[in-house]
């Protein structure tokens, strides 16, 4: 099976400090669901930044969609980024745009016309339950509403890879489950999902999800033995 993401001995160092990530090697397969766990400061966000091409590694090999992403020319990055949906930990909504326009951003960036994008954006707004707040600006939205807008923006373009950094951190348990169901639905359509989370309760809610755990910048279970709940027989997500 062709991988969608492959890391080989990847290291990341900011400036001249010690490595934030060391010797990271793993392979993600299309249509799989992965949780990334680890304590604060373990390097989860740094690993996700490498995944969504916000950062190049200091060393090692990263293959994304079958292409070497480390040496990928800068002008080709937008095409790859459009295949990746990102839910940022701090949402990173555009402050002067309404919720509707924030959600529509990936489609507009991809060149979809206003007429074409109206229906899918409205459907997504309905799905995440912010119909009454669609024209509100982010500053007037609650934390949970902002998070739902951020998730809707990440999934609206049906990405091949969805990367979410603590996507349920600001929503109530009911909405967290609902959002996970959205991720699962997207996963069933073929999107590979990577969710970084502290929330241990989420891990058991997605069937056949794989777990990666970072500890002080190193992937502590590259064999895939750690799962939640443990399923040692299934090693699909861990090629190495």
């Amino acid at each position: 099976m062709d991988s969608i993401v492959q890391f080989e001995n990847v290291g990341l160092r900011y400036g001249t400090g010690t490595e934030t990530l060391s010797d990271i090697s793993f392979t993600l397969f299309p249509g799989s669901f992965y949780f990334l766990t680890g304590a604060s400061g373990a390097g989860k966000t740094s690993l996700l930044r490498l995944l969504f091409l916000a950062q190049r590694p200091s060393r090692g090999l990263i293959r994304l969609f079958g292409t070497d992403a480390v040496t990928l020319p800068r002008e080709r990055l937008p095409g790859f980024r459009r295949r990746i949906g990102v839910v940022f930990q701090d949402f990173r909504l555009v402050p002067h745009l309404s919720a509707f326009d924030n959600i529509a951003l990936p489609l507009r960036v991809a060149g979809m016309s206003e007429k074409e994008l109206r229906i899918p954006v409205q459907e997504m707004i309905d799905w995440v339950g912010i119909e009454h707040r669609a024209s509100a600006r982010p500053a007037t939205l609650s934390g949970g509403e902002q998070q739902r807008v951020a998730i809707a923006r990440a999934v609206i373009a049906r990405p091949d890879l969805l990367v979410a950094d603590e996507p349920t951190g600001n929503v109530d348990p009911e909405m967290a489950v609902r959002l996970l169901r959205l991720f699962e639905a997207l996963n069933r359509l073929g999107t590979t999902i990577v969710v970084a989370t502290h929330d241990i309760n989420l891990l058991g809610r997605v069937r056949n999800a794989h777990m990666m755990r970072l500890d002080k910048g190193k992937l502590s279970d590259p064999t895939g033995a750690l799962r939640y709940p443990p399923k040692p027989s299934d090693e699909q997500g861990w090629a190495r």
Partner: protein
Amino acid sequence: MAARPKYRKQDKSLIPEGRLTGPMPWVIAIMMLLTILAAAGGLALRASAVQVNADLAGRVTVQIVEANPDLRSAQSIAAAQALDQSRLVRTIETVSDEEVEQLLAPWIGSEGFDSSIPIPALIDIDLNGPANETNLDELRDLLVDIAPAARVDAHGDWLKPLFALLASLQYLALALVLLLAFATSAAVLLSARSSLNTHGETINVLHLLGATDAQITRLFQRRIALDALFGGLVGLLAAVTVLLLIATQAGDIGSGLLESALLHWYDWVILGLIPFAGILLAMLTARLTVMRALRKIL
């Protein structure tokens, strides 16, 4: 079911528009006003120089500088007859003694003429061709025997310092236009950098959503173009008002030199194009600034 929200047009803008509240449109308006005035000055000087040059191109004065009035008169008549026969000469006019006295009156007074003061006889000539050295030498050769006291001078020679001054002022106007264009570019560059800093987070998000440098650059170009369009039109309107007032006042004075400096229709076309050149310059500056800044981001 909740009512569909109303979408405001401005929400479609990924980078918020300045809405002419910032200083940039007004800075551009001032720059455009000054640029158009400087350019108008240069064009008026050029028009004046061309007109004066055309007026004097074939004008020559022959002076008979002879102290003896009888000899002076004889040489003047002989010279006038010879010149009248010359193929070079189109028209000839002997300046009467009364006219010469009027010309000299401001210096020596209307009562001061007597036979003891040698006054040269003057003959004004319009040549068929230009009053260049070849033609002047031919006239001198013609007169050397029949009027040895004759001096042949082109009018243009007397005005050479004026022409040099007009040329210098035109270069100065051109330099001012270039300096103002440079200053406009610098202002746009600073504005674009400031805008990049202000919207840095939005730009990062757009990049991560897959926006290309060209897409992001277009947003800034559009903003700058709107600012420059407003500034350019305001500057043009103000400049045209000023120029029309000056033209009216110059017309009232009735000076030949000032009237010769009036702008032609094609000069007005050039002035009208300056704001559009300014818009293109501002857009180009913004494009290069933003593209260069974006290339530093992954």
